[in-house]
C-alpha cells in the first residue's frame, strides 16, 4: 500500500520535474527545423537567436534517463537525427555560456566535440580566428566544394557577449557570413535585449533572425487563464490508469485521480489557484508550486489545505522571518534605525547615531534592559552580518566601525510587521516601534 503510493508520487515527480513539453510553439519549431535542415542539406550558413522567457522549455536538456523530456530544441534535433545524412555530414557543437566562460574553453570543448583533439594538439595558433579556421578546414573532404556542416548551439547566449571583445561570436558569425564553411549558429537566451549586447562589428555580421517564444495566453481573459492552468494541473497530476510502467494497483490510482477531479471542482481550490495566477502566471511557477505540494505529501491524498499551506508559504516574506529571529536588543536597534531614516529622510546612518538613539530610549524607560556599548556594537555587527543593513562604501576599512555609514535594507512596513508578529516583546518596545517620541 505504502510503496504503491510512493510509486504514484514517483511518477508524478517525474512527470513534473522532467517534463519540459511546451505547447503551441509549432510555428517556431518548424522555423528552426527548416533553418537547421537547410544548413544540413544545402550547406547554407545561418545564424539565429531563440529568445524566450526563463524555463519555458526552450533550453537544451540532455535526455538521459527519462524519455519524457522533450524541449523545443530537442524535438527539432531529434527530428533532424532521423534524417539519414545527419550522422554523415553534420556535426553538432553545444556550448553553454555558464560553462564555457571564456573563448579558450569554448574552443577547447568545440575541438573535442568535433573529435579533432588528436589533429589539433601540438599545433600552436596565432589567433583565435586561425584556430577556428583550421578546425573548419579539417572538416572539408577532398574536393573544396564539399564539407561537413557544423551546427553551433550556444546556450546562455548573453554570457558569450561578455567574453573579451566577443572574439568567439565575431568569428562564428564571420564564418557564417563569408561562406568558408557551412555552419549554423543558434543562440538561446532569455534576454530580449540581447542584440544590444553585441558589438557593432559582431552585430553587423549577424543575420538578424530572432525567434521569440512569447507566452501566448497573455491576451486571454482571467477565467480562461484559470481554466488553462487547471487543465495543466490536471494533466500534471493525473495518473494514467492501468499503465504497466508504474507498478500500482488500479484501485489506488483510481482513488487518486478521483480525489484530483474533486479537487479541481472545489471552489476554495479554484480561489487558491486564482491567487497563484494573480501572483505569477508562468509555467515554471506552476511547476515549482506543484513540486512543493507533491514533495510534502506524506501518503495522504491531495487536499485543498495542502495547496493553501504552500500558497501561504509562497506568500510570506523571508525578511520578516529573519527579523522575528532577532533578539530584543537587535530589534530595538533596527527600530531606532527605522526612526533615523524616517527623521532624516533616508540619510545614511552610523553606529554612533543609532547607539545614541537607542540609549536615549533605554534610559527613558526602565523596563528596557540597558547593555554595554561593546555588546551593542556586537549586536549591530550581527545585523550587518544578516545583511539587514549594508555599508555604503566598503573602501573605508580604515575608519572605525562606529563611524562607517550604512543604509537600511528593510522597509518600515516589514519592521512593524515583524514587531507585531514576534511574541514576548516588552510593551515599551512595541510602542516605540510605532512612534519615535518616547
Amino acid at each position, binding site marked *: 500500500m505504502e510503496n504503491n503510493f510512493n510509486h504514484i508520487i514517483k511518477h508524478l515527480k517525474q512527470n513534473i520535474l522532467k517534463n519540459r513539453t511546451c505547447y503551441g510553439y509549432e510555428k517556431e519549431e518548424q522555423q528552426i527545423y527548416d533553418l537547421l535542415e537547410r544548413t544540413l542539406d544545402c550547406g547554407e550558413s545561418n545564424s539565429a537567436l531563440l529568445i524566450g522567457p526563463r524555463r519555458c522549455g526552450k533550453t537544451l536538456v540532455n535526455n538521459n534517463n527519462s524519455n519524457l523530456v522533450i524541449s523545443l530544441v530537442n524535438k527539432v534535433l531529434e527530428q533532424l537525427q532521423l534524417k539519414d545524412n545527419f550522422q554523415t555530414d553534420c556535426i553538432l557543437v553545444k556550448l553553454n555560456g555558464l560553462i564555457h566562460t571564456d573563448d579558450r574553453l569554448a574552443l577547447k570543448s568545440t575541438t573535442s566535440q568535433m573529435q579533432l583533439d588528436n589533429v589539433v594538439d601540438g599545433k600552436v595558433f596565432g589567433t583565435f580566428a586561425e584556430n577556428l579556421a583550421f578546425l573548419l578546414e579539417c572538416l572539408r573532404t577532398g574536393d573544396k566544394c564539399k564539407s561537413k556542416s557544423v551546427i553551433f548551439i550556444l546556450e546562455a547566449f548573453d554570457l558569450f557577449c561578455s567574453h573579451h571583445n566577443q572574439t568567439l561570436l565575431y568569428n562564428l558569425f564571420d564564418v557564417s557570413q563569408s561562406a568558408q564553411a557551412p555552419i549554423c549558429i543558434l543562440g538561446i537566451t532569455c534576454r530580449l535585449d540581447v542584440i544590444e549586447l553585441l558589438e557593432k562589428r559582431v552585430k553587423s555580421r549577424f543575420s538578424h533572425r530572432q525567434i521569440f517564444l512569447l507566452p501566448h495566453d497573455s491576451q486571454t481573459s482571467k477565467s480562461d487563464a484559470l481554466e488553462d492552468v487547471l487543465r495543466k494541473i490536471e494533466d500534471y497530476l493525473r495518473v494514467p490508469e492501468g499503465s504497466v510502467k508504474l507498478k500500482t494497483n488500479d484501485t489506488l490510482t483510481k482513488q487518486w485521480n478521483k480525489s484530483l477531479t474533486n479537487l479541481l471542482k472545489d471552489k476554495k481550490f479554484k480561489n487558491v489557484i486564482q491567487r497563484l495566477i494573480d501572483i505569477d502566471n508562468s509555467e515554471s511557477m506552476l511547476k*515549482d508550486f506543484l513540486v512543493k505540494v507533491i514533495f510534502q505529501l506524506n501518503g495522504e491524498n491531495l487536499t485543498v489545505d495542502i495547496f493553501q499551506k504552500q500558497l501561504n508559504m509562497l506568500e510570506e516574506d*523571508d525578511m520578516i522571518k529573519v527579523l522575528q529571529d532577532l533578539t*530584543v536588543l537587535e530589534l530595538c536597534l533596527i527600530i531606532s534605525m527605522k526612526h533615523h531614516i524616517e527623521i532624516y529622510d533616508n540619510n545614511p546612518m552610523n553606529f554612533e547615531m543609532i547607539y545614541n538613539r537607542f540609549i536615549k530610549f533605554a534610559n527613558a524607560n526602565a523596563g528596557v534592559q540597558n547593555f554595554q556599548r561593546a*555588546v551593542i556594537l556586537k549586536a549591530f555587527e550581527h545585523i550587518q552580518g544578516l545583511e539587514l543593513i549594508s555599508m555604503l562604501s566598503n573602501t573605508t576599512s580604515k*575608519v*572605525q566601525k562606529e563611524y562607517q555609514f550604512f543604509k537600511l535594507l528593510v522597509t518600515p512596513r516589514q519592521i512593524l510587521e515583524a514587531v507585531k508578529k514576534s511574541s514576548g516583546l516588552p510593551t515599551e518596545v512595541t510602542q516605540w516601534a510605532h512612534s519615535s517620541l518616547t
Partner: protein
Amino acid sequence: MATDPVVLSLKQSLPCRDSQIDQLYNLLPGKDDISIPSVYICGAASTGKSAVVTSMLHKLEIKHAIVNLVECYTSKILFENILNKFSDHTFDPTNPLPYAKCDNLMDFISHLKGINGLDKSVLVLDKAEELRHMDANLLPAFLRITELTNLNITVILISDIVFEKYYNKSTDVEPLKVYFPQYNKDELLEILTLDFDYVKSEAAIDFDVDFYKNYLSLFLSVFYRACRDLCELRYMSRVNFTKYLQPVVQKQCSVSDSMVLWRNIAPVLKNSLEVLYLRVDVTSDQMNNAAHSLELPYYAKYLLVAAYLASYNSTKDDKKIFVRNTGKKSKSVREIKAKSKVSEQLNTQLGPKPFTFDRLLAIFYAILEEKVGFNNNLLVQVSSLVELRLLVLSTVGDGTSLDGQKYKCNVSFDFIHSTAKTIGFNIKKYLSDFRHL
C-alpha cells in the same frame, strides 16, 4: 506518517527541529530516484542547519560531499574539494595531490562525469553566501547542476541570509527553500538541558537535572533578550554555572535552597551580560578601562589627545579653542548656539576628519604646558602610534610628501577621555561638541 526509523532517531538527537527534518527528508533522494535539483536551507546561526543535513545524510547513507565555502578562497579549491570528496580520494602524505587539478567549471563538470556512482548523490555547500563573491557563473551553475552534468545530483545550499540577497541577472532557477527558525525560549531551555551530562562531568559535586533546569531558566531570564545564539548561550551558561555552584561547593548552602543561590548568582550574571559575545571572563577587567590597561609614554598620550582634538574639531575652531583668552566671547557664544541646534550631527558622531602633521604638532604644543624640544623621539612617537593603529594614515595625502601626510585619530571618545584623565587633561573643554555644555 513518515515512519522511517531514521527520521525518528534524528528527531531524538536533534530536538525542536521536527518539521524541518520532515521537509528535508521528503526532499532528499532517499525514497525514489527522482531528486530535486537544488534546495536552499536558510536560518540564523547555530539553529542546527548543518547538523540536521549532515546527520541525515549519514544516517540515510546517501553519497554526499559537504564543502564549507569559507575555506574556498579560490574556486580551484572549491572544485578540487568537491571532486576529492565525491571520489573518496585520499592524499598521499609524502606528495599530496588532489583527485584532479581543475580550476574552471568546464573541467570540473567533465571530471564530475568521470566519477561513477554519483547518481542520487547530494552536494552540500555550507556558507553558500560566499558563492556571490566568487565567479559569477558558479551560483547559477550549481543551481542547475543536474542539467549541466545530466547527473542526478541534489545541491543543498546552507546559508544565514535569505535567498533574495542572491538575486542577480543570471539566477533564474529558484531552489526549494527550507527555513530554520530561531529557537524560542522554551526550546532553548530544552536544548541547553542536553548539556547536563557535560556539565555534570565537569562539576565537583552531584546534582540532578531539575537543579540544572532551574539554573538554566534563571540564566535565560537574564540573557534571552540579549542573545538567542545557542553557541553563545551554551558558552555563557557553562562559564556561569561553575560560579552558580560555588556556594554549594564551599558548603555555604545546600543544593536545595535556591534563594541563596539566586542571590549569589544574580550579580554575576549581570556582569557576564556585560561581556556577552566578548569571550572573556568577567574577572579580567580589561574591558572597562582599556585606557588604563594601555600604558603609553607621557608625550605619546598628549600626542594622542592632540590627534583626537585635531580629528574632531574643525580647523576654523582651532584659534578660538587653543589661543588663550581670545577677546571675542560674544561671537563664539553665537557659534555655540548654532552648534547646539544640530545636536544629532555632532562631530563625535560623524567620525574623525584627517589632519596634517603640522596641525597635530601645533595642537600638541598648544595643550602641553611645559616646552619640549622637537626631536626624533617625538617623531618616533607619532609613527609608533600609527603602528599601534591608534592613529591611521588617511589615504588623502600622497605618501611622498614628508609633511603632506594626513592622519586620523582612531580611538573612541571613552578611550581618549580616560587617557586624558590619566594626564590630568579635561578634554571636553577643548572639544567644540562639548564646550557649550
